[in-house]
């Protein structure tokens, strides 16, 4: 299972491309690839980070109230909203990217961080709605009622009672939203052309043309770009499992 990932690290520590047999172990590891990757891609890593975090914030702001409404209010067509959310996931990404290009070009959102945040949230928003809805379904309504009796409005009750209780759901949804945005390549390629705004996935792609015969910086970039995911996974093990199973784990 993990061999290909080992291979990636192995290649990143060696020089030479795929045209020759790569040794099984990096006997004489060199960090050149990493140095070059860091110099070239440092800026892009920061871009990715900003975009991913932005996408987390946006997705949660949009999704949390909706999830709460779908879980707790008696809305007759809630089922249909949920259907809709599920169906959005059947649409090939390219179709969305195509349409966004022309819309963004009119709005001046091309080559901009806000544009990427908006586009990358197409993965995060539906996901976050569903995860959080599953969690929020189990919040006892009596607690919210109690807050309402004390004179809090719907919004205040939501902010001061529901959100703190849904901390786990928010963290889970946020974590995944982050990873989706981090790994996005389609929107990065579609909606940017300049070097100022270039997520690391696209940086990796541009590298391939430049370092055709020396793959170590390319693979080093790949390893670097996987690190946030690895760190998050180890730190947030519990939330990840819960997120994938959508609250099935109590």
């Amino acid at each position, binding site marked *: 299972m993990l061999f290909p990932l080992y291979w990636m690290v192995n290649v990143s520590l060696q020089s030479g491309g795929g045209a020759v047999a790569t040794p099984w172990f990096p006997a004489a590891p060199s960090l050149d690839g990493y140095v070059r990757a860091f110099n070239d891609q440092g800026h892009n890593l920061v871009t990715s980070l900003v975009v991913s975090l932005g996408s987390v914030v946006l997705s949660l702001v949009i999704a949390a109230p909706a999830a709460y409404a779908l879980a707790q209010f008696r809305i007759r067509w809630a089922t249909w909203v949920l259907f809709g959310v599920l169906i959005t996931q059947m649409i090939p990404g390219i179709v969305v990217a*195509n349409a966004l290009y022309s819309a963004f070009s009119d709005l001046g959102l091309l080559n901009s961080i806000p544009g990427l945040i908006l586009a990358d949230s197409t*993965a995060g928003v539906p996901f976050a709605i569903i995860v959080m809805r599953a969690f929020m379904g189990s919040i006892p309504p009596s607690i919210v009622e109690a807050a309402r009796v004390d004179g809090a409005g719907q919004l205040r009750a939501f902010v001061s009672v529901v959100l703190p209780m849904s901390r786990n759901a928010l963290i889970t949804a946020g974590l995944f939203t982050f990873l989706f945005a981090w790994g996005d390549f389609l929107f990065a390629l579609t909606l940017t052309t300049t070097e100022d705004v270039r997520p690391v996935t696209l940086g990796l792609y541009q590298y391939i043309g430049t370092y055709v015969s020396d793959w170590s910086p390319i693979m080093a970039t790949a390893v670097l770009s996987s690190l946030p995911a690895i760190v998050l996974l180890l730190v947030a093990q519990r939330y990840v499992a819960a997120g*994938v199973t959508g609250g099935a784990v109590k």
Partner: protein
Amino acid sequence: MSTRADAGTLASASGAAARQSRDGGATPPSRDGRSGRSSARTKARIAELAFLVPALVYLVLFFGYPVVKNVLMGFQEYTTKTFFTGEAPFVGLDNYSAVLSSSLFDKALLNTVLFTAGSILGQFVLGLAIAVFFRRSFPLNNVLRALLLLPWLVPLIASAAVWRWILDTDYGALNRFLGALPFVDGNPAWLTSTSLALIAVIGVNIWLGIPFNATILYGGLQEIPEELYEAGALDGATGWRAFRHITWPLLRPVVTVVLVLGVVYTLKVLDIILGLTNGGPANSTQTIATYSYFTSFKEFDFGQGAALGNVLVLLSLLFAVIYLRLNRKAVDE
């Protein structure tokens, strides 16, 4: 990676669904909503709807609009000229009849079916095996489970490049390993022979899909109360029998979900095929998804490309409907 997101989204829905159907359907709070005539009530209603508005607006803008656009494009003659003149005459069903009658379509459809079926079967069986394995507690269980998710998180470009080397006929790690075995002769051309390329692509896709399957199924397994196994053990149901009579029936809802989701997600797979074989050799790994992409972006016939894309969405919808039917109970609260 939107595809991953999709899978995640649906999965979480299904997880909840599974849980609720087991709980006998969790009922939501019922706030006495029998008659909403008083203005206070109406106000409250509006306040409640306001919670949904941002999400609805977002979904309509970012999904509704593209879909409508694509459906329209499927009925238009949309080529390079269109970009300059802005003219895209409506041609009825011409695009559909053109793509459906092309010789490549049948091949692509067959490959799509094989690719989807093969991927799902592999991901599911291996994912289930791994999930069952992780139920036992042993040291490092958590760390390993985190690592297991990695293939799902590494940028696909990197994964594709690494797999291309591993599978390289002459210098790839796989063939070097096989070559060291006594009973293997020759170097299988994993990515460059028409008979093996589809198998290789399916293999890589299985690798990519295992984490997802294993994690969801693991979540489902965690839901099964330990007492059931203890009771079963008294009746002499252990090992395989316990799996058959206790685990499997209780896991069924999750299984359904994982399979249907897997299908929807696999139908859309594009980048991994492009990355490994570009649909080749000799179209042996061309699926509807890759065919749609080539038609639009290599031949610049965007109308036909959109038509193919719509065929793909229809296929997915078919499965979505099945999925929703199976989970009707859970969603219909």
